[in-house]
């Protein structure tokens, strides 16, 4: 048995948002009498941590702590319209809508604070910890909770904000394909290392190491979660998964996870990443979408690594042990043929 090692490189771009725009997200924010802010949305948390990330954006934009923000989402009786959680759009679209709503809510807070603190609006500032301060007068400050209560019971006002973000829908020229298919582009570059067993055709992925540029990380641990999970999915696509193993023949379709192959914990390689931040011009705090792209660059990096390990070029997915063994056999035959034809009678 020989284990051949190889390294493969790939680089990708990925667009943020529904490709032709026209995909709005709205947010409504209101303050409760205790100074908490309810952020009403209709976006979905798929497990990627959207509630957390949007909570961070709302807290930042409102100038309050995370504990003072309640995310109420995906109830169509209370949440305003949202196109949905897909197309690497949610943090970008919803985040922008939340910032817009927060700005309106802050203006409403400042209206009350002007009266309560008897200060000019230009002298008021948020400290980001739940207070509004009078610049240069440290003793004159008020808790946002007290301003919200005063708004409600003393002035009879609402502390609320509305926000929406939409990239306007654009058409495609059917002749030339001219179109505006993104809001911004994130980038990744992956280096994969593999070992290929020449007896069994099995591929062991030794490492997947990537650089990602995602505009701005709202929550680095959750970005890393996408990168690690995406590397697993990319590896799974490259080497294991399909619902129709004999495609285009539709037969032998798996019914459950005992028949549908995926890598388990034992197969997981070392996954490392560095994340760069070059803020986008239109994302909330410069965000670009990182949700989908993380599965993409590991696939060709692994397939290229298999080539550099074995000399077998495989242009189909998944790369099964059978494909590798057939490729190795073909190479061996070709080498024997070459040997025969280049060993003339001399």
């Amino acid at each position, binding site marked *: 048995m020989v284990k051949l090692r190889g390294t493969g*490189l790939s680089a990708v*771009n*990925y*667009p943020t948002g529904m*490709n032709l725009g026209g995909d709005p997200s709205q947010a409504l924010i209101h303050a409760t009498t205790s100074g908490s802010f309810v952020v009403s949305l209709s976006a*979905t948390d798929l*497990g990627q941590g959207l509630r*957390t990330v949007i909570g961070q954006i709302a807290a*930042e934009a409102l100038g309050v702590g995370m504990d003072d923000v309640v995310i109420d989402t*995906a*109830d*169509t009786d209370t949440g305003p319209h949202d196109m*949905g*959680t*897909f197309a690497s759009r949610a943090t970008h679209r919803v985040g922008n809508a939340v910032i817009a709503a927060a700005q309106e809510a802050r203006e409403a807070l400042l209206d009350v604070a002007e009266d309560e603190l008897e200060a000019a609006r230009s002298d008021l500032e948020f400290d980001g910890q739940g207070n509004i301060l009078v610049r240069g007068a440290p003793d004159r400050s008020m808790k946002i909770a007290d301003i919200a209560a005063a708004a409600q019971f003393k002035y009879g006002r609402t502390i609320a904000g509305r926000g929406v973000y939409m990239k306007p*829908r654009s058409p*495609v020229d059917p002749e*030339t*394909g001219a*179109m*505006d*298919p*993104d809001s911004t*582009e994130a*980038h*990744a*570059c992956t*280096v994969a290392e593999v070992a290929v067993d020449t007896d069994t055709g099995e591929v062991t992925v030794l490492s997947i*190491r*990537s650089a*990602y*540029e995602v505009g*701005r*990380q*709202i*929550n*680095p641990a959750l970005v890393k979660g996408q990168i690690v999970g995406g590397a697993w999915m990319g590896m799974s*696509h490259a080497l294991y998964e399909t*619902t129709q193993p004999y*495609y*285009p023949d*539709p037969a032998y379709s*798996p*019914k*459950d996870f005992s028949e549908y192959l995926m890598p388990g914990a034992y197969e997981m390689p070392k996954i490392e*990443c*560095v994340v*760069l*931040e*070059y803020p*986008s011009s239109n994302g909330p*705090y410069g965000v670009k979408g990182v949700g*989908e792209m993380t599965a*993409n660059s590991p696939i*060709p990096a692994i*397939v*290229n690594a298999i080539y550099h390990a074995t000399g077998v*070029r495989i*242009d189909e*997915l998944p790369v099964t042990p059978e494909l590798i063994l057939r490729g190795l056999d073909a190479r061996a035959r070709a080498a024997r043929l070459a040997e025969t034809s280049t060993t003339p009678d001399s």
Partner: protein
Amino acid sequence: MSPAMNVVGRSVPRSDGIGHVTGRTQFTTDRSFPGLLHLKIVRSPLHHARILGVDLSEAERVPGFVRALTHADVPHNVYTILGLIGVEPEEEFVLAEDRVRYKGEPIVAIVAESEDAALEAVARVKLDLEELPAVFEVEEALRPGAPIVTHWGNNTFMYEGHPCRRVRFGDVEAAFARADHIVEGVYNTKPIEQAPTETTACIAVPEANGRYTVYTNTQAVYFSLDNTAIILQVPGNKLHFVGGTVGGGFGGKVDVIVEPLATLAAMKTSRPVRYAFSRSEEMQVSSTRSAWRIYMKDGVMADGRIIARKVTSYADSGAYSRQTPYALTKHAANAAGPYAIPNVSIDAYCVYTNRQPSSAMRGFGITMASFAIEVQMDKIAEVVGLDPWSIHFINAYRDGDMKPHRKLVEDATLIETMQAAAGLVGHELPARFRAMTSARRPEGGV
């Protein structure tokens, strides 16, 4: 990071993390309701067939059987999920009428007191089907004489009069003629399941005020509500969708499949109805990532510059297009990858076959483009005699470059990202690549 930031940029713990890992988070089917009914589907056992008859008589005698729904019960039975954003024509049947176009296509919905009773009744429905020739291969589906899957006479989605999404930029053939090398590949990929931990599911509950609350794990509550309102021909204000906590989507929960039938069943029975996919339905019936065939031909100069690319792509949409037409447009916009290629021609076909429909999945239209592009890059490096890193830097796009779909590049950071990756793996780049940036090229520069 800006020093003014308080919480943005911090790895605060997930607000729902403790609930998820302790099992206290309530997912869609964790809810229970008194009088809950279960909906299961009678599906086509054949890939393509005419429906001659459906006999429910034995199914109706199964203890616990409540009622059956057929296409005659569905007010707007033929729909297109992207109709909401203007995509035409309407093509998919909520419940099949006279023909089934894929194995697993829904024909009858059975509503019963228990899941077991529903499955038992499903098994006792007798179908009289006349098998029709089926097509499973994308290029065969486009040949004259192929079995026609659609109701409009050919097997492609039509893009404003064209059978494919086109991109035309520069003069590809002239550039091929002057290229030093031609590098070609045919890339084939198979269907892939989104494989979320939680299968697609909803529970529709009739409320005392005449409305219906639908608990769902859709990725898009309004998209699902609006499509359900169209299919059931009810005002949107009759429907109240509640979701937002989903055990994985990956694109598998943007087709509106379970909500319309569960809500219809709740309307017909005045009882809560649960419709949840089994794992085998998730794998064998619900949408997959499309299988792709991508022909890619690149014209390359001896110094490694790619001067032309021609792409012909086929996505196997299966029997209905669902989100796939949009994926082809996204594919066409990205088939040049993050590279500055001055001559590009792309034809991207959404092809109908007698296969379970494909639809959205993470990387929608781009994942397999990236696979083909990046294996091409590796081949080009070998043909030209450079290492793969060099080919990537030589061709990397910069701000201000024109993409084939005629949008100027902005927010380009490919070069910086590759430099960081080289640093991470300890690959020493030559000085000229270390000095490169994604900034706009000098006027007249290349």
